[in-house]
């Protein structure tokens, strides 16, 4: 070992190597393609991973500050482009990539973020058809969450006014792009629900780039729409633009104008419906009047109403017959009773004491009317009433004479 030979400490050497790396301009700002492995997110917020290709590997770190710009969640096996600088970590004596930006290889990072959030919310059931609410037929109050500037809001108001000018529109002005947009949109939806502001919400904006529409792909907006008790129509961009909000909304409109068309009935159709209802009403009443008329005709044709006297005649005739029967019956009954009376009278007559008297007998009675039926019971000087068949005489008992066989029982 030569005396001139310098002896390094490990730290000195590592620092020398680090300085050498840091002097290479090509290493200060580079982009490297590889596949993520050993990915780890530390509680500190720093991301650690290894980039690999078929033959080699490279240690990488992405500090919390840089990671804040990540739209998507890095995963093992993902093919990425990592931007940053290569330097040495003296403690480990190892060089690594200090990554400032990570982009999915192939699809853009926004697309990656879109796919990831879509998959996550789908798995949670936020797109379930069963959760979709029915839109009101006649919205009375329509909340519109969008930018108060721009063509979209004016298109919507024009169409709402033309189709169904009876509703009231409540405009909830929000920023629809930029850092704060997602929060503002979500809060406006939550506010409308908290205050029960309206019975329908339209949430959206006009067309723009994927970046411009990004707020509608962010989780807070998607969740606020899902949680809304008020039915939500999402109305973002142009026809081909599909956002996460579209999936969680109760109805997706292709454009803001389309949302206004879907939100309310068209007064032209309503007037047509009114006319049809009036026509149906008239037809129904006419039909019923005709039915009533033919019913009346049928009634008028029946004999009772056609010739009301005939009923009376018929009844009078049967009354006559009945009365005649009654009289005949009555006469017969009287005759029968009279015959019976005659025969009873004859019997009675045959047994009458007057008949006996008429044959020459008489009866004797005392003054009190008691019959004196034997000579023995008659007392001397007693007054008696003798009854003949043609009348009575008064007499006095003058003497007595008993028949030999009629000795008084004294």
């Amino acid at each position, binding site marked *: 070992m030569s005396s001139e030979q310098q002896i390094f400490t490990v730290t000195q050497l590592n620092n020398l190597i680090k300085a050498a790396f840091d002097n290479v301009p090509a290493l200060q700002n580079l982009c490297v393609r590889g596949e993520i492995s050993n990915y780890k997110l530390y509680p500190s917020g720093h991301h650690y991973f290894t980039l690999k290709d078929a033959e080699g590997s490279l240690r990488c770190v992405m500090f919390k500050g840089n990671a804040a710009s990540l739209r998507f969640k890095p995963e093992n096996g993902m093919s990425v482009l990592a931007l940053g600088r290569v330097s040495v970590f003296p403690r480990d004596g190892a060089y690594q990539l200090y990554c400032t930006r990570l982009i999915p290889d192939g699809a853009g990072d926004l697309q990656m973020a879109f796919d990831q959030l879509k998959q996550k919310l789908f798995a949670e059931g936020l797109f379930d058809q069963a959760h979709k609410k029915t839109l009101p037929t006649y919205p009375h*109050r329509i909340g519109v969450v969008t930018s*108060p500037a721009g063509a979209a809001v004016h298109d919507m108001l024009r169409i709402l006014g033309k189709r169904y000018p009876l509703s*009231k*529109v409540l405009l909830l002005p929000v920023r629809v792009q930029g850092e704060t947009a997602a929060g503002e949109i979500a809060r406006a939806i939550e506010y409308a629900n908290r205050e029960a502001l309206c019975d329908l919400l339209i949430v959206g904006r006009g067309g723009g780039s994927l970046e411009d529409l990004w707020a509608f792909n962010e989780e807070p907006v998607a969740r606020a729409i899902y949680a809304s008790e008020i039915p939500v129509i999402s109305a973002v961009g142009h026809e081909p633009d599909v956002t996460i909000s579209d999936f969680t909304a109760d109805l997706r409109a292709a454009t803001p104008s389309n949302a206004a068309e879907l939100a309310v009935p068209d007064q032209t159709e*309503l007037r047509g*419906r*009114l006319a049809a209802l009036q026509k*149906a009403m008239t037809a129904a009443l006419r*039909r019923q009047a005709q039915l009533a008329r033919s019913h009346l005709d049928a009634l008028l044709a029946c004999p009772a109403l056609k010739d009301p006297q005939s009923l009376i005649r018929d009844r009078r005739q049967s009354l006559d017959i009945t009365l005649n029967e009654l009289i005949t019956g009555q006469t017969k009954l009287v005759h029968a009773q009279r015959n019976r009376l005659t025969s009873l009278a004859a019997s009675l007559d045959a047994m009458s004491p007057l008949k006996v008297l008429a044959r020459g007998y008489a009866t004797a009675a005392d003054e009190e009317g008691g019959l004196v039926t034997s000579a023995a019971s008659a007392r001397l000087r007693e007054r008696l009433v003798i009854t003949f068949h043609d009348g009575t005489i008064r007499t006095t008992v003058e003497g007595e004479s008993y028949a030999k066989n009629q000795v008084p029982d004294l």
Partner: protein
Amino acid sequence: MPKTKSQTFESNMTRLEEIVHRLEDGSVPLEEAMKLFQEGTALAGSCGKLLDEAELEIVKLTKGPDGTIQEVPFDREDPS
């Protein structure tokens, strides 16, 4: 709270549909049917009038100086 124009329209329309349904059913006595017809005609007229006279009411919700949210008129003709 009084009914809004849209609420009146909806209830009139619902009642009108019910009347037409009952008249078409044919089970209502003629005298009542005539009364329903008169009511229906009045409802249809009122619905048409509501549409004729309506103008879309638009308000913007803004935070007032005291932090409460207020309704202010919104000029839809202003394209700015």
